[in-house]
């Protein structure tokens, strides 16, 4: 059944929470062992920055959405992704992972994706963004959040991620509902948008940023001592949920993203030769070649009040 977006917007507004609702100094921080602490720090830094990837995607979608309600929903989602990043930073501070006021930097692959989105997301069509952003959400955000909830016992962390999870489930519900709506378009229009999107030279930059990101995050998960199947299960979810909608299936871009997901979870697929090579190449990209961080990325804060 089609989603009632007005009702969803009401729900989103009703369920807003703030950093001030969390007792950041409550006991439980000591439950992070020194060994876990060392592994968790870069992982959290990446997670926090991946929230920003979603945030930037939603910011672009807010400009493209066909109705005012959907625009407003995306404006909230943009802000909520920032809230998740803020909360994750606040957890890092709670666990003593921050060096003064310094904001930890993301890995190079996250940085490349942020850089790409910042430059090109606003010029991408809704059907492009509306199919790729859900994959990033299920694969990265969803899988990593699930991992944290499974592995970290700190009750404050549990509370924070329970709230984040609830937000994310609304994001995904809207993501797939929008894919369903987008799938109602004429095939001719969808194909034109697909070709129009792929022929842009900038799109290749996006692909070259996106491909190593997934493999890099897989490497990170493995480095944390976790079964990579958790990431793969999340990637499969994109296809499983998408298949439920007759119309989402009509989206050529959905089929492409799903097919790519299939390659990622098959470790024997030749795709990994390219993707793993790209992870190695991108790790060597000299810093001078990277653009300056956009000002929005400096908005991140662990302070509940400003």
């Amino acid at each position, binding site marked *: 059944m089609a989603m009632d977006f007005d009702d969803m917007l009401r729900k989103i*507004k009703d369920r*807003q*929470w*703030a*950093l*001030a609702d969390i007792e950041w100094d409550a006991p439980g921080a000591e439950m992070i062992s020194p060994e876990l602490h060392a592994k968790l720090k870069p992982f959290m830094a990446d997670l926090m920055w991946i929230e920003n990837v979603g945030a930037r995607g939603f910011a672009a979608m807010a*400009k493209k959405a066909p109705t*005012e309600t959907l625009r*407003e929903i995306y*404006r*909230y989602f943009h*802000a*909520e992704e*920032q*809230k998740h990043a*803020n*909360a994750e930073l606040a957890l890092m501070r709670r666990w003593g992972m921050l060096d003064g006021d310094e904001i930890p930097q993301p890995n190079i692959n996250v940085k490349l994706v942020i850089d790409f989105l910042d430059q090109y997301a*606003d010029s991408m069509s809704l059907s492009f963004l509306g199919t790729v952003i859900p994959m990033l959400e299920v694969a990265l955000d969803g899988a990593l959040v699930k991992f944290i909830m499974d592995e970290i016992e700190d009750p404050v962390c549990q509370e924070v991620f329970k709230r984040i999870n609830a937000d994310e489930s609304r994001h995904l519900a809207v993501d797939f509902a929008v894919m369903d709506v987008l799938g109602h378009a004429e095939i001719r229009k969808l194909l034109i948008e697909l070709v129009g999107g792929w022929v842009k030279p900038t799109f290749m930059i996006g692909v070259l940023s996106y491909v190593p990101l997934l493999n890099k995050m897989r490497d990170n998960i493995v480095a944390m001592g976790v079964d990579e199947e958790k990431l793969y299960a999340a990637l499969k979810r994109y296809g499983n949920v998408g298949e439920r909608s007759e119309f989402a299936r009509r989206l050529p871009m959905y089929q492409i993203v799903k097919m790519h997901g299939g390659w990622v979870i098959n470790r024997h697929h030749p795709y990994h030769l390219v993707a793993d090579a790209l992870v190695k190449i991108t790790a060597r990209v000299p810093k001078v070649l990277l653009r300056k961080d*956009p*000002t*929005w990325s400096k*908005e991140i*804060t662990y*302070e*509940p*009040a*400003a």
Partner: protein
Amino acid sequence: MKTIDVAIIGAGFAGIGAAIRLRQKGIHDFTLFERGTKIGGTWRDNTYPGAACDIPSRLYSYSFARNPDWSHTYSGSNEILGYIESMAADYGLHERIRFGHTVAGIEFDESAGHWTIDIEGRDPVRARSVVLASGPLANASFPAIRGIEDYEGHKIHSARWDHDYDFTGKKVAVVGTGASAVQIIPELVKQAASVKVFQRTPGWVLPRVNRRTSPLLKQLYRQVPASESLARQAWFYGHESVALGVVWNTPLTRVVEMVGKAQLRRQVKDPWLRRQLTPDFRAGCKRLLMTDDYYPALQQDNCKLITWPIARLSEKGIRTAEGVEHQADCIVFATGFDVSKAGTPIPIVGRDGRVLAQEWSKGAYAYKSVAVSGYPNLFFTFGPNSGPGHNSALVYMEAQLDYLSGAIKTILDRDLRLLDVRREKQDRYNAAIQRRLTATTWNSGCHSWYLTEDGFNATMYPGFATQYVNQLRTLKLDDYEVVESVPARPKIAAVS
């Protein structure tokens, strides 16, 4: 109870203008009912720092009440209020104004042909004609934000400024980025410790070149009135030409947008801030903002633009959807007015007990924005669909005043009991207005205060000011039901 010829409700720009026009037409039996203790309406109420008009004063004034002495191209609220006061003084209107008289409602007595005006805490008054000059921007509107009552700091509405509050060293939040906000923010930034500006949708900002009028020019305007008229005409036609890009979506709309974008590029260097300040609707769809000071003020070290949706107000400040509580000593609500697009500012009961608020519940309408069928001898200033998007409101108002004073003169000269616009004429007029509105920028998809919740445009006039003025030039009595007073029966001579 005595019946006066004309009751004017409101002593703002419209009420004072109506009184002058009536007096100039030889009508002297009128009274103005004003709920406040001073005249001036919107310009009495809007005294926030930086308050000014974004239409040049030469054009934002009545042609029948000249003022050669405007100090700048665009005047501040004090000077405009002074102008209104000087008009009232010049025409000896103060003795005709009943201050502290809040009109609670009006009701028409068809058999007698007069309106009964209920006034809070006082005896009612009867009038043969009523001019409703209460103005669309009379009632300040706080936004419907969750928890607005929870906030324990100081709250100020732009239209009810608290001049006793000292902003020095204070943390201030400003909600809204419309016409008032872009004037207030640069002033607050000069004073407050920090200013956070909460924006929902950015507007199109165009440059405003405000020059001081030289003494020589003032002297010329004083000594050669034709030169002032010429200047006014030049401003008028300059603004009329803007309608081509602002009222309708045309290639010229792109030109207006290019000017806005050029100003943004010139004044804002950071790409993300520029993105946040770039409107996503066509220029003209919402009120254009005219200022050179707003963007630079936003980039001062003590100022910050916040575009996250407001989740709620808390005891100490504003919580936005990115989870942060933005604490403030004072919140300034520059959130506009409770504009009557549906319903009426006061209860109005017309012929056969009909209630105008009910008829207007889905959106207001009128005949040429001035009269409504079923409500005889009642005239609106700034009635439905009389809003300008590109020209001076005073030009529209002056046309209304000429029209209604002519109609009232007709009522009095011909001793009419009723002058009631015919329903079919009104319907035909409104069908045409709504049809024409579909092609305008205001109905092009953005949400603005011009539209009701259902998207009905009861506010704007879809055309040139010249067209609006022309349609009100003559009173076509054929469009009205005209009922003369029943001649008094000849007295029967007493039989001795």
